[in-house]
C-alpha cells in the first residue's frame, strides 16, 4: 500500500513523474510503444496511427472546451485547414518537418478569427458561432479548387524526413507517436503555467477571472489558437497518413466525434483525452471484430449484426455518461486507487 509522496526538493515537486514506480511504468510504456509496430502487424499499426492522430486532435478540443470552457463545434474544420495547408506546402516541395508546424500555425490563425465571438457570447451561442465556422470552412474546402482540389480533393506526397520516406504505416506510426508525445507533454506543462491556469479560471467563472486580472479576450483567443494549432497538426498528420484528402473528411460529424471523445474520456484531463480518443477509435473496431467472429458461426450474421453494432456503440456511450459522468478517467482513477490502497478497501 502506498501511503504518501515525500517531496524533498523543488525539482522533485516539479517533476511530472514523482515516484520510481511511475517512472518504471512510463519507461515500460515507452518501450512498448517503440516495439509496437514490430509486433502488432500492419492492421494494429494502422489503428495505432489513427488513434494517435485522434488523440492530438481531441487534445486540442479539450484545451478549448475542457480546460478553457469554450465550446467549439468547428474543430474538424480547423483540422481541415491544417491538412490542406500541409498538402499545399508538401506539393510545393516544403519539407515535412516545416510543413507540419506551419499547418498548425495556419489553423491557429483560423482559430483566432473564429474565437473572436467568444468574448461576447458563450455556451450555446458560441457553439452556433463555431458551427458557422465549420460550414464556412467546409464551403472553402469545396470551392477553393486551386488549393484544395475542390470536391475531388487533393493527393499528398509521402512525407520525407532527412531523405527517409515516411510513406509506410510503420514510419508514420513513429512520427505520430513522437508528435503526440511532444504535444501531450506541452499541454501537461501548459497547465502548470500562468496561461494554463488562466484557462481554468475562465472556465470556472470568467467574471471572477477578470477580477483577478486575467485578460479575458486575450486568454480566450489564445485557447482557441492553441486548440486549433493541435487540430491543424492532427489534420496535417491525417493528410500525410491517408495521402488523399477530400472535404468530406472534415465534416460536422468529425467535430461531434471529438466532442464525444472528450466527454466520454473526461473533460479537462489529459489522460481522459487519450482514453476518450482511444475509446471512440477502437471500440467500433472491437465490435466489428466481434461481428466478424460471429459471422463465421451463422450465415448472414454480418448483414444482421452490423446495424446492431452501431446500436451497441451508441448504447455504450450513453451508458458511460449515465453510470460514469466524469468519464473513463474516473474509472481509471478508481482502479489506481484500488491498487494504491490494496489490500485495504477503497
Amino acid at each position, binding site marked *: 500500500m502506498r501511503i504518501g509522496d515525500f517531496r524533498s526538493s523543488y525539482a522533485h515537486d516539479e517533476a511530472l513523474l514523482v515516484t520510481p514506480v511511475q517512472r518504471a511504468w512510463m519507461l515500460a510504456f515507452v518501450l512498448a510503444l517503440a516495439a509496437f509496430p514490430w509486433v502488432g*502487424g*500492419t*492492421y494494429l499499426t*494502422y*489503428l495505432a496511427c*489513427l488513434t494517435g492522430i485522434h488523440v492530438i486532435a481531441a487534445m486540442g478540443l479539450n484545451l478549448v472546451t475542457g480546460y478553457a470552457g469554450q465550446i467549439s463545434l468547428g474543430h474538424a474544420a480547423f483540422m481541415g485547414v491544417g491538412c490542406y495547408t500541409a498538402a499545399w506546402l508538401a506539393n510545393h516541395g516544403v519539407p515535412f518537418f516545416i510543413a507540419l508546424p506551419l499547418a498548425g500555425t495556419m489553423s491557429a490563425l483560423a482559430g483566432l478569427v473564429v474565437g473572436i465571438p467568444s468574448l461576447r457570447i458563450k455556451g450555446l451561442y458560441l457553439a452556433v458561432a463555431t458551427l458557422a465556422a465549420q460550414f464556412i470552412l467546409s464551403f472553402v474546402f*469545396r470551392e477553393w479548387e486551386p488549393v484544395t482540389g*475542390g*470536391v*475531388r*480533393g487533393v*493527393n499528398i506526397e509521402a512525407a520525407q524526413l532527412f531523405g527517409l520516406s515516411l*510513406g509506410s*504505416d510503420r514510419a508514420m506510426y513513429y512520427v505520430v507517436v513522437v508528435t503526440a508525445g511532444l504535444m501531450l507533454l506541452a499541454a501537461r506543462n501548459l497547465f502548470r503555467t500562468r496561461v494554463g491556469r488562466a484557462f481554468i479560471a475562465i472556465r470556472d467563472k470568467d467574471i471572477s477571472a477578470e477580477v483577478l486580472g486575467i485578460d479575458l479576450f486575450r486568454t480566450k483567443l489564445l485557447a482557441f489558437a492553441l486548440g486549433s494549432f493541435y487540430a491543424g497538426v492532427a489534420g496535417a498528420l491525417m493528410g500525410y497518413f*491517408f*495521402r*488523399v484528402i*477530400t472535404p*468530406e*473528411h472534415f465534416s460536422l460529424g468529425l467535430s461531434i466525434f471529438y466532442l464525444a471523445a472528450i466527454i466520454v474520456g473526461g473533460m479537462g484531463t489529459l489522460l481522459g483525452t487519450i482514453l476518450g480518443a482511444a475509446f471512440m477509435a477502437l471500440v*467500433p*473496431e472491437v465490435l*466489428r471484430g466481434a*461481428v*466478424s467472429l460471429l459471422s463465421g458461426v451463422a450465415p*448472414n450474421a*454480418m*448483414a444482421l449484426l*452490423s*446495424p446492431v*453494432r*452501431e446500436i451497441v456503440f451508441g448504447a455504450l456511450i450513453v451508458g458511460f455518461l449515465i453510470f460514469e459522468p466524469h468519464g473513463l478517467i474516473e474509472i481509471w482513477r478508481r482502479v489506481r486507487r484500488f491498487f494504491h490502497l490494496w489490500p485495504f478497501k477503497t
Partner: protein
Amino acid sequence: MTTRRHALKASAALASLSALGMPLRALAQGNELVVGAAPPITGVFAFAGVGLNAGVGDYCEWRNETQGGVAGRRLRYISEDSAYKMDQAMAVFKKLMAAHKPPVFYGDSTAWAKAAAVEVSKLGSTMTAAPSYASELADPKKVPYYFMAGPTYAAMVQMLLTYINSQGKGGKKPTVALVYSDTEFGRDPIAAAKESAQKLGLEVVQEIVTKPGSADVSAEVARLRRARPDYVIFHGYVLAPIPEFMRQLREAGLTNTRFMGTIWSMDKASADAMGPVADGWMGVMPYRYAHDTEGAPMMKAMNDFARKRRPEMPYTSTFYTHGWLVGMTFAEIMERCLKANKPLTGDNMKAALESLTNWDTGGITGHAVDYRGHQIAAGRIYRYDLGKKLYEPASDWIKTV
C-alpha cells in the same frame, strides 16, 4: 468399463480426425482464393451495401458450387462492414490484407478507392474494385489496379444525352436541365455532360446545385419552371429530393418534361418509394433488371441462386447484380492468370482485365464487355412502369467511347 472404452475410442478417433483435419483445413485455406471486401453494410450507403455484399459473396458461393471455384481453387469471400467511412474501410482493408492477403479486394467508395490506390500500388499484389463510378478512377495509368463494373458517371450522363438527342422531333432538339448534389459524387459528370451536350447541339437551359437529400426545393423548382426543359437529369442523389422536384414540377404544369437519373437512383426500390410521381421516371442502367432474363442465362442463374440462398430477399436488386458482376470479373481475371500459369500479381491481373475485350457476361450486360478502359462503357435507358412496378427498356444498349 465398456462405456469408458467407447469414450476412449471416440476420443482417439476425434483426436486423429482433428490432427488430420487441421492440416487438411490449412491446406484447403492455402489453396483457396480469398476475395476480401469492405462493403458499407451500415451507414448512409447501407441501402445498397447489403445487396452489394450479398452479390459478391453469393457469386463466390455459386462459382464454388457450379464450377468448383476458379482453376480448381475454391473462392472464399471474407467481408467486414466499412460503415461507409473511409478510415474504417481502410482498417478492414489492412486487416484482411494482413490476415489473408487476398489477391482481389472490393471496397466501399470513391474515397476508399483513392486512398487504397496508394497502398495497392505499393503492394502490387491486389486488384481492386468498389461501387464507385467516379470518372477519375477509370484511368489504367493513374489507378492501374482498379476497375469499375459499369460506366463512369460521365459516361452514364453521356448515354442519357445520346438518348435525348435521338428524341428530337421535326428538327427541333430537346432542351436539358442538370440538377445535381453539391458533392464529389454529384459534381463528377457535370463538366463532361455540358461538353457532351454542346457536341450534340443540346441546349442546357438550367443548371441547379442542391444539398444531397435536401427537402425544400421550391426555389429550384421555380427556376426549372421558368426554363421549361424537355428533360431534367438528376445526378448525385439516391432518392430525395428527386420525388419532390417531380411532384412540384408536375403540379406546376410541366407535364411533358421527362425526368431522368443515373445508376444509384435507378433501383426498383427507389422507384417504388417515389410513389405515383415515378410513372415514366427514366434513367440509365448498365445491367439488365432481374425480371429481364430472356437470352440472359447468367441473369437466370443469379436469380435462381438468390432465391435459393436468400428466400427473405423480396427481389434481386441492381446492387446485388453489380456485386455479382464484380465477383464474376474477379473470378475471370484470376482464372486467366492461373490458366496461363502466371502468379496473381497486380500487373498480371491488370493484363488479364485488359484482355477482356469481348467478354460474355451471360446477359448481365447488353453487350460483350470491353474492360480495356477499366470500365464497362455501355448501358441502356429504362423507363419505370408504375402499373407493373417494373423498369422497361426505353432504348437499345448504348456504348460510349
